[in-house]
């Protein structure tokens, strides 16, 4: 069965619908388990107290922020090189999800920062990089919005995604470089000593829950996009016949 079997919208929609149900169930189950582990089972930190529990949302969100951008870049490359129609859709569908996770990482980071650093925001290298990543997502989505012809928009957005992907490590490096030059003395580092297993487990379960949630949402958005295109095509056929 070749990839082109799934390029057929009907095959894809059927399969995606089935996977989406499973992934949705998995996400719900993992999220409940993860939240139980994170909020009830995991011990409070002896230094940070209960606020450490923000980490169980913050860290997986930050991972997903990067994961989604990588997914976006790979999907864009596939779309540009092999011109696979579903790749464009996957890239387009993943961007708002990634932006959402990035935003969540920023907000939870800020909430965590208040008790830890006594301020809502510090220009810490990681927070700054994530903020810039958020801008990259916004730019990508804005470009999709701005170009009316969806095929042109797809190609332009794919070029931008690849340019962004090349730049993400450079930006990250430059921000680290900048941060070491301007390191404020009072800032605690987020990665303290090696993480205790009682905290590692909830973190991993939450990370998996987020991944499953991503798959669910991605497939839902792709199916929606396919249906929208079908409606557009029908309207067009209606108008010209």
């Amino acid at each position: 069965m070749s990839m082109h079997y799934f390029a057929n919208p009907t095959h894809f929609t059927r399969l995606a619908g089935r996977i989406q149900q499973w992934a949705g169930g998995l996400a719900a189950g993992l999220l409940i388990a993860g939240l139980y582990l994170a909020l009830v089972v995991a011990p409070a930190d002896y230094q940070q107290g209960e606020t450490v529990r923000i980490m169980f949302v913050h860290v997986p969100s930050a991972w997903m922020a990067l994961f989604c951008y990588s997914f976006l870049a790979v999907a864009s490359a596939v779309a540009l090189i092999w011109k696979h129609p579903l790749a464009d859709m996957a890239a387009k569908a993943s961007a708002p999800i990634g932006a959402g996770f990035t935003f969540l990482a920023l907000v939870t980071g800020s909430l965590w920062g208040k008790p830890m650093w006594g301020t809502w925001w510090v220009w810490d290298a990681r927070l700054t990089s994530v903020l810039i990543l958020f801008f990259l997502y916004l730019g990508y989505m804005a470009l999709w919005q701005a170009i009316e012809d969806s095929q042109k928009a797809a190609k332009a957005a794919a070029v931008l995604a690849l340019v962004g992907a090349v730049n993400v490590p450079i930006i990250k490096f430059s921000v680290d470089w900048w941060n070491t030059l301007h390191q404020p003395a009072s800032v605690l580092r987020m990665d303290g000593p090696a993480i205790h297993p009682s905290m590692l487990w909830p973190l991993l379960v939450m990370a998996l829950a987020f991944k499953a949630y991503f798959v669910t949402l991605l497939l839902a958005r792709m199916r929606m996009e396919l249906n929208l295109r079908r409606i557009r095509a029908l309207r067009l056929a209606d108008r010209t016949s």
Partner: protein
Amino acid sequence: MFQGQGIACDRGERRIFSDLDFSIAPGGAMVLRGPNGSGKTSLLRIAATLLGAADGRLLWNGSEILADIEKHRTRLHFVGHQDAVKGALSVWENVAVWADIRGAGDRCVDAALAAFEISHLADTPAQYLSAGQHRRVALARLVASPAALWLLDEPTVSLDAEGTACLRRVIADHRAARGIVMAATHIDLGLDDVELLHLKLP
């Protein structure tokens, strides 16, 4: 010999035309006819490699054009809806710049201006020209640097009778030198021995 085989074109998720074949021999001319929206401009842009065809092959003397796009571009002139004339440059400069970029130098610029009867405007900044004079400047580029294939999209728009006559003479000379012309026009250019290609609405 310029050929297209089974050319198809998609615009905005819909197919404009498909399975289009054409063949133009050296010295030949093909005029595209059809209502608005039938894909005349799209076909010319595909022939100019500005637009990718959804299907089919383009051949020049039997060899695949897409295998060496840049080579194909050097042997064609494309005059589209826009004149690519800069108001800040004089008429002479406007023609010379393109001849220069295409590697022909400015040897033929004066002859090109003469062919379209705009020699007297040579030093006038193009911003003071009328629409028809603009068009003549754009068309003068055809003569200023040599190219075997001319792709003309509504070349007579805003030209007066004298301008159209200039164009007719220039095309005749081009064909006499075994050049090929593919043009979309609504009016009869008065060319001899023209092949018509009728495009229909999808």
